Structure formats: C-alpha cells, structure tokens
C-alpha cells in the first residue's frame, strides 16, 4: 500500500469535480478497468457528498482528506473529515422499492467497495476506509 496519493479539499460541493478527476486518474494508474473505474468515481463522490451533507451539515469551511493507495490485492481509499461523528449503525441506504429523493449514496458505495468501515478509534471527526479487492491474481 505504498505510493499513496493524498488530496485535501474544502467541504464545498464545487471541489467534487477535483475529487472525481483525481479518483479516475489514480484508478487508471492501478490498472483498474473502465467500468469499475466509473463505479469507484461515483462511490468516492457519494462518500464526499455524505460528508458535506451529514458530517459538516453543509458547512463548507471544513476539510476532506482522501488517501488513495493500492497493493497487489486491493485498492484502498481512506477518507478523513473533522465533522460530526457518524453513527455507523444508523447508516443504511433506503429500499429501492421506496421511491423518493435520497438514500442511494450508500448503495452506490457498497456496489463497488467490499469494505465500508468507520474507524471507531478516531477521536475527532471520522475516518472512513473503503477497500475494493481485486479478483484473482493481479
């Protein structure tokens, strides 16, 4: 998991385009196929959107730090914020049959990432770890 890329952006939605650009270019370095790359781009965008909405409650003066790395077995993104603590047990996507605005983000994240985990030891803010395992050898 060496060769990490770290990016810090303000918690303002206008920086999501920067996060997407880094994500797609980073993913390409790790030789991940285009379809998966698009799924990862959406997932990371959704994770940041959730931080802006729920952890920072729309306060755009906070920070989001993303760290991308990959080894032979997995691609990993660790996302830190200094917002309100998430209650992981209450994070759940809504049922697809219940059609109303919202509640899709978590589904988009879990569609592509095998691990979606908040670090319980972090004192202030949140650290979310997302891991996607590669299939077979790489």
């Amino acid at each position, binding site marked *: 998991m060496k060769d990490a890329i770290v990016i810090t952006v303000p918690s303002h939605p206008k920086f999501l385009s920067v996060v*997407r650009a880094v994500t797609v270019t980073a993913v390409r370095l790790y030789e991940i196929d285009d379809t998966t790359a698009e799924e990862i781009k959406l997932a990371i965008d959704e994770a940041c959107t959730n931080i802006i909405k729920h952890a920072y409650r729309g306060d755009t003066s906070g920070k989001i730090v993303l760290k991308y790395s990959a080894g032979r077995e997995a691609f990993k993104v660790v996302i830190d914020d200094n917002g309100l603590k998430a209650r992981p047990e209450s994070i759940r996507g809504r049922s697809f049959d219940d*059609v109303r605005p919202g509640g899709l983000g978590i*589904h988009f994240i879990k569609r592509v990432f095998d691990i979606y985990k908040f670090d319980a030891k972090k004192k202030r803010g949140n650290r979310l770890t997302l891991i996607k395992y590669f299939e077979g050898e790489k």
Partner: protein
Amino acid sequence: MNITVAVYRGKKVVELSGDIDMYSSPELREHLMALIRRKVPSLPVNFGNVSYIDSSGIATFVEGLKCMKSYGGRLQFFGIPEGIMEILRFSKLDRVFEIYGNIEDVFDS
C-alpha cells in the same frame, strides 16, 4: 453542467450536458421546477451529453417526477448514455422513469 431549454416541434425539451452532481443539481432543480410549476403536460429531457450523474442529480429527477405525477404530467428521458443507464438499472429506477431512445421515440409515445 449546462442546461438549456430547446424547442422541438413546438415543444420544450430540456437539454443537459456535463456533470450533474451535488454542486450542479440545485441549478438543475431550479430550472426543472420552474417548468413543472407551470404544469407542462410532458417534459422531455435529453441526456445525450450528460457525462456524469450522482445521487443528488437522481434525487432531483425523482422529486421532479413526483411533482409531475401529482397533476398527471409526464417526465420523459431520452438519449441516456450506457453508463448512466447502468446506474438507473442498478437503482431500479429504469422502471420508474419513462425512458426513450431518442426524441422521435418520445414524440411517438
């Protein structure tokens, strides 16, 4: 994201391009709702040049659809790129939205 309203065969068509995300969806919502408030009977939306949509964009359209349904209006998507179609299928929203291949299919419907 860029949003314009074109007129095709005398009917308003929403033309979208670029990325629709948490940053741009409020602007999309504003334009969409301005049209819907006037109770347009149908509203075709061209997705042909949309490069990206996230859950904020989708939520905006779900909201628009609910509003239109309340007065019997129809929200009609066309020209959806495969990557976006995949997201709608995954979210089971391909059954919820009216989806057409191109503008002619919308008019023939």
